């Protein structure tokens, strides 16, 4: 995909036009075109924003499409704007030698999303880490407990309203 390397494609329509044969894009659209709310191709990385309610199915869809290796999940806190939390899933394909990013947004009123641990058991620790540091619940996670911070810790350190130093 060297010819589109420097280009930035914003929005679903533009990405679809610029990368019509992208396997992940095709698979997601074939599964449920409405679940894909936004798309972005920037810095040679494809970001697909999906509806938070269907993240597990989206993960299973890209897994079936050849994106076999779960690499990372983390969150970004966009405090004080809403929806506050952005979850970024990085999925690698050993076949296409390429990485995609799935993105979903959850609100601060109900910071919860479906766990993708049933799809990739490797997401277990990563989701626990997000739960621990951001306080986002993962529905259907087998063992959602704090992982880095002590069990009795109060607050979620990586939230933007949590101070870097001093007292809470």
């Amino acid at each position, binding site marked *: 995909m060297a010819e589109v390397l420097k280009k930035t494609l914003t929005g679903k329509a533009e990405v679809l036009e610029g990368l019509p044969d992208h396997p992940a894009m095709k698979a997601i659209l074939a599964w449920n075109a409405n679940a894909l709310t936004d798309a972005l191709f920037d810095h040679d990385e494809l970001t697909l924003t999906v509806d938070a309610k269907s993240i597990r199915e989206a993960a299973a869809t890209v897994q079936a499409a050849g994106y076999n290796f779960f690499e990372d999940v983390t969150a970004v806190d966009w405090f004080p704007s809403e929806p506050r939390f952005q979850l970024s899933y990085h999925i690698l394909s050993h076949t296409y030698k390429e*990485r995609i990013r799935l993105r979903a947004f959850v609100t601060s009123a109900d910071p919860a999303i479906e766990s993708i641990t049933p799809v990739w058991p490797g997401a277990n620790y990563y989701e626990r880490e997000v739960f621990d540091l951001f306080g986002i619940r993962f529905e259907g996670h087998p063992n959602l407990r704090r992982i880095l911070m002590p*069990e009795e810790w109060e607050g979620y350190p990586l939230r933007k309203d949590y101070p870097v130093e001093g007292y809470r």
Partner: protein
Amino acid sequence: MIESVGTPILKAPTAEGAKDQHMVLNMGPQHPSTHGVLRLVLEIDGEIVVRLYPEIGYLHTGIEKTCEAKFYQQVVPLTDRVDYLGPMANNLCYCLAVEKLLQLEIPERAQWIRVLLTELTRLNSHLIWLGTHAMDIGALTVFLYTFREREEILRIFEDVSGQRMMTSYFRIGGLAMEPPLDLFDRIQAFIKTFPEKIDEYSNLLTGNPIFRNRLKGVGYLSAADAVALAVTGPTMRASGLDFDLRRDMPYCGYEKFKFRVPVSTDGDCWARYVVRLDEMRETVKIIQQALDGMPGGSIKADAPKIVLPDREKMKTQMEALIHHFKIVTEGFNVPAGEVYQGIESGHGQMGYYVVSDGTAKPYRVHMRYPSFATLQALETMCQGRMLADVVAVIGSIDIVLGEIDR
């Protein structure tokens, strides 16, 4: 406060499925074979491991949170402290991520020196793994041999950056300074004898019946499990998956180097030992190629608003002085966006996810470190095995607690 769900680990013996004769044993946090402060809660039936829970977080220092309060260039020294056995690899991954956001072109010489030093870092990391792994099994001698070579690598690091371990030598946009004149000769002298040293380790261990028996068939991890549990690096390749970011998704000019990726299909501790030993030999080849083809030119990108000017220029040119002052006091703004940069470190796939909101401080820096995922596979590898095998398996997966806890 959101409630946790799941089984609290200390209640393990009364949990469903556990039998009366089962015992819960704490291994660590202060245990010599856990390679740092890792606590393993083991449920054992006699000497057989039934369940195993790694308890981590003892070294958690909130580096990701600290990054958000620093300028982009101030994050570089923080990255050293994450995987403290592979400082240059951390620097490289972070710098590449920020350079991707800035769309900076890095001069070829800087790229080659980066490759050269990152590969030396890999040797450093593998040498510690080999020494401590063999020591866990009971072969104490190897440790002394590997640390002899590691000492020379650390001296080279000291020459090049002024620090033995926390090097912080790579900067956003290039390198901190031109390496010393005799550096390449020293590295050349080092790698000239290094393959013999690998033979020496191999002579001490490969034929050793105790070492063989402790590793062969122990800690089996199938290829499917390795993918499912997000295991990467030599541990994954020892399970038969042929994937290496350096070859398959090259970064920092790795596409110009020729090397082989060692793979084994056995999936046991022995396979991991063989793969890492082979990887050291391949690393020597990459270093040799980097030395032979070292290009001339600048070691810093041509971006005066991002890269600190040379000392000489700063003293003689007004603009350089202004840029220097601005960068040091205000940092530099990075265009808004998000990038993920993955590299192949000594332990596996390392990744930095950097989100910028257009200011001089990163909005979010997330670090994906290979040991964190590899640790998840520990239970799969140890279940149904003897307690003593846990020690062999921990050694063979080569974890660093600094990068797990961050």
